[in-house]
C-alpha cells in the first residue's frame, strides 16, 4: 500500500509529500480497510454457512430477508445490537466486559499480515507467520477471562476445554508449518507465497517450469501431509466440528459464551468467524499459493512495484483484482469444507480429542518434519552440505527422488501410526482391566 501510494502521490501526481505523511495515510487506509473487511467477512460467513449446511440437509436455509436471504446477517446483527445486555449478579463485571474485547482484538490484528493479492500485504513483517500464530494465541486468554468472569460452572468448563484444546492443537499446527518454513527458508508469508509459483512443481525446486502460479505445496507429499494436519488443527483452533467441544451444546450448553448476551455474545461470534476466515485464509496461503494462480504473476510483472517503478498502474489493479479473486475463492472453498465437515460428523469427546492431537497428529507432523528435511536435502543441498548422493543429478531427478522418498516415508508413517493408534487404545483398555484386577 505504501509503495503504491508513494508512486501515486510522488510519481504520478508529483506532489512530493514527505514520507511520514504518506506512511501515515497508508496506515490509516489499511487499518480502515481491515476494520471494514473483517466484520463483513464474518457477516458473509454466517450467511454462507447457514445456506451451505441447509443444502446439505435438503433444506434451503435463510431466504426471507432480501434476495435469497442475503440480508439475513444484517438482521441478525440488528437483533444482537438491540438485545438486552445481561451481566450475571455474581460475575466479575470488569473482566466480564473485557473478555470479548480481548478475544476480538487479536483476530483483527491477525489481518495485518494476510496478503490479499500481489503487493497487497497490509504489514509486510519478515516474521509474519510467527506473528500470525503468536497473536492468535492471545485469544486463549480472552476465553479464560470469559469463562472465569461468568462465574458459572458450564462457562468455566467450556473455557478450560477451549483453552486446553487451543494450546494442544497449536503444536501440530506449528509443527506442520515448520515443514513448510524449512522448505521455503523464511518466516515471511509473502516469500512463502512467492515460492509457490510454477506448475504443479515450484519454480524454485525446478527452474524452468512454466509459471502459472500453481506450484502449490499441497502437490508435494510433505505439503499434503502438512496440509491435512494443519487443517485438522485449524478445525480445533477455530472450534469447528468435529472439535467444537468448548461449545458442545449437548453437554455444556454454550461453553464460555453461556452467560453472554446481546452484542458481547455477538463479539464472540465475530471473533470466531473471523478466526475461521483467517484459518481458511492461512491454509490457502500456505498450501494453495494464496493469491497465486494463472495470470497473476504475469500481470504483476508489468505493474508498479518497488523493483519496477515504471510499470502501469492499471496492471496493479488487474493483478490485485485477480489475486484477491483467487485468494478469496480458495478461502471460501476451505470454509465450505469446514461446513461440510460440520454437516457430516458428530463431535469427539474431550479426552479423545486430546488423544488424537497428542498421540496421532503430533507424531505425524514430526515425521513430516523429517520428510521436509529429506526434501530440502535432495532438492537443494550439494556436496558442500555433505549431500554426496545427489551430486551430478539433474534437478528433475533430484526432485523426483525427493518426491518418491518423502511420499514413501509419509505413507508408511501414516499407516503405521493408524495401526499403533488403534492398538494403543485397545491395549490401554486391556491394561486398565489388568491393573484393576491386580489391585482389587
Amino acid at each position: 500500500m505504501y509503495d503504491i501510494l508513494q508512486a501515486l502521490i510522488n510519481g504520478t501526481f508529483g506532489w512530493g509529500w514527505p514520507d511520514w505523511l504518506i506512511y501515515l495515510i497508508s496506515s490509516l487506509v489499511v487499518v480502515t480497510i481491515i476494520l471494514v473487511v473483517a466484520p463483513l467477512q464474518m457477516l458473509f460467513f454466517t450467511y454462507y454457512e447457514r445456506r451451505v449446511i441447509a443444502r446439505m440437509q435438503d433444506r434451503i436455509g435463510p431466504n426471507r430477508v432480501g434476495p435469497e436471504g442475503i440480508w439475513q446477517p444484517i438482521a441478525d446483527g440488528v437483533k444482537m445490537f438491540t438485545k438486552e445486555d445481561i451481566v450475571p449478579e455474581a460475575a466479575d463485571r470488569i473482566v466480564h466486559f473485557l473478555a470479548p474485547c480481548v478475544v476480538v482484538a487479536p483476530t483483527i490484528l491477525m489481518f495485518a499480515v494476510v496478503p490479499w493479492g500481489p503487493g497487497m500485504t497490509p504489514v509486510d513483517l519478515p516474521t509474519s507467520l510467527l506473528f500470525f500464530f503468536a497473536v492468535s494465541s492471545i485469544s486463549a486468554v480472552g476465553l479464560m477471562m470469559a469463562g472465569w468472569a461468568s462465574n458459572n460452572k458450564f462457562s468455566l468448563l467450556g473455557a478450560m476445554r477451549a483453552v486446553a484444546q487451543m494450546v494442544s492443537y497449536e503444536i501440530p499446527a506449528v509443527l506442520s508449518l515448520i515443514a513448510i518454513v524449512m522448505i521455503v527458508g523464511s518466516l515471511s508469508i509473502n516469500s512463502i507465497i512467492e515460492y509457490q509459483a510454477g506448475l504443479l512443481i515450484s519454480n524454485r525446486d525446478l527452474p524452468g517450469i512454466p509459471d502459472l502460479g500453481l506450484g502449490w505445496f499441497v502437490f508435494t507429499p510433505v505439503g499434503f501431509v502438512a496440509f491435512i494436519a494443519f487443517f485438522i488443527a485449524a478445525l480445533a483452533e477455530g472450534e469447528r466440528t468435529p472439535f467444537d467441544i468448548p461449545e458442545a451444546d449437548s453437554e455444556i450448553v454454550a461453553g464460555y459464551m453461556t452467560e453472554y448476551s446481546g452484542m458481547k455474545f455477538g463479539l464472540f461470534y465475530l471473533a470466531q468467524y473471523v478466526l475461521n476466515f483467517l484459518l481458511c485464509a492461512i491454509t490457502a496461503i500456505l498450501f494453495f499459493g494464496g493469491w497465486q494462480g494463472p495470470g497473476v504473476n504475469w500481470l504483476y510483472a508489468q505493474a508498479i512495484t518497488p523493483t519496477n517503478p515504471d510499470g502501469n498502474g492499471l496492471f496493479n489493479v488487474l493483478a490485485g483484482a485477480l489475486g484477491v479473486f483467487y485468494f478469496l475463492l480458495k478461502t471460501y472453498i476451505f470454509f465450505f469444507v469446514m461446513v461440510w465437515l460440520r454437516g457430516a460428523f458428530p463431535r469427539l469427546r474431550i479426552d479423545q480429542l486430546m488423544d488424537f492431537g497428542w498421540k496421532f497428529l503430533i507424531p505425524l507432523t514430526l515425521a513430516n518434519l523429517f520428510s521436509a528435511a529429506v526434501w530440502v536435502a535432495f532438492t537443494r543441498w550439494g556436496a558442500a552440505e555433505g549431500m554426496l548422493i545427489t551430486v551430478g543429478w539433474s534437478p528433475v531427478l533430484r526432485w523426483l527422488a525427493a518426491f518418491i522418498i518423502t511420499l514413501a516415508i509419509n505413507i508408511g508413517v501414516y499407516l503405521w501410526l493408524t495401526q499403533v493408534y488403534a492398538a494403543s487404545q485397545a491395549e490401554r483398555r486391556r491394561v486398565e482391566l489388568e491393573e484393576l484386577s491386580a489391585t482389587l
Partner: protein
Amino acid sequence: MMEPPFEIEIPRGRVIEVQRDDSRVRRGGGLLRGMAVIWKHWKESFRLNRSYSQIHGTFTIQYPEEKPRIPEAYRNMPILLYDDETGHELCTSCFQCERICPPQVIHMTQAKDPATGKPVPAVAEFIIEYDACMSCGFCAEVCPFDAIKMDHEFELSTDDHAQLTVHKAQLNRPISYYASIAPTMWAEVRESALKKLQGNIRRRPDVIGIAPHLTERIAARRAELAAQAAAPSPAAEPASPPAPSAPTEARKLTPEEKAAKLAAIRAAKAAQAGDGVTPSAEGGTPAEAPPADDKAARLAAIRAANAAKKAAATDAAPAATGEPTTPTPADDKAARLAAIRAANAAKRKQAADSVDTEEGS
C-alpha cells in the same frame, strides 16, 4: 479374527447378531464415505423434489407462498355445517358431541320454539373452546346428523386468547365449503345428512336453526319474495323458497311486529312457566335476539341459569321464590328473566322433591 455372527432360527424368522467389526484398524475411510454422502446431498439439493421415492433434493415447502397439500381426512378444529340453499344448520343439538368430547370443550344450548317454549331440533348457541380442543375428531365421528365436521384451516394463531372461544356464528360453514375440502367424505354421507336435515327443518319454526349471520338476509329475502308474490299475482306463491314458514308470517318480522310478537311470547311463557315444560326456558332468548344483541342476551341467559342453579341448590323453595323480588327490574326484559328464574327454581325444587320421595320409597 472375526467370529461368524451368532444366529438361531425361530418360527418365521431368525435371531441375528448385528455385524460390528469394530476391531478393524480404521484409517479414515469411514469419514470420507460419510463426506461423500453429504456431498451428494449438497449437489442434489438444487433440484426440487416432491417424490416419495426419492431421498435427495430439496423437500422444503415455502410455506406462506406455498401451502402443503392437505389430505381429505385431515382434521384440525371442528366446524358446524349449514345448508347453502336454506341456510339451515344441520345441528339438532342432540348433545352427542358434548358428551363424547374428551377435554369437554363443547357447550351448547338447545333452541326453543318461542311461541310454545318447546324444544326444537336446532341449536341456539354452540361454543367450542378451540384453545383446549385436542382435535381428536370424536365429535365429527359421533354426530348422527353430520352437522359437525373437522376443518382444514390451520392458521388459527391470534394474540387474543378470548378469540379462541368460538361461538356458533364463527363456527358456521356452508356445506359447499366442506364439500370442497373433503369431496369424497361428504359424498359418502350427503344423502342421509340432507334427508335428516329436511326432516328437521320441518320441525323448526321461523328462523330458528338458521345460521345467525343469514337470518337478516333470509328475512330480507323472504320479505322481498313475499312482496313479489303479493304484488303481481298469487300464482307466484309456490315459487317461494322451500322454507317451512309461510311467507305471510315472515312479513310480520318488521321491528315493530317483532316486538309485539315477543311480548306475546312472553305472556304465553309466563303462563306456561308453572307447567315447567323444559328446564332451560331461558335458552330461547338468544335465538330471538338479533345477532348484534347476541352477547348481551347470552350473558343474561347465563346469569339466569346461574341464578336458577343457585336457587335450586339452596334447597329452600321460599328463598327461591323470594329471590326474584329482591332485584328491582328496570325494564321488562329483566322482569321476564326474573319470572323465568323463579319458575325454574320452583320446578327444579319440585323435581328434586319427587326424586327424593322416589328414592325414599
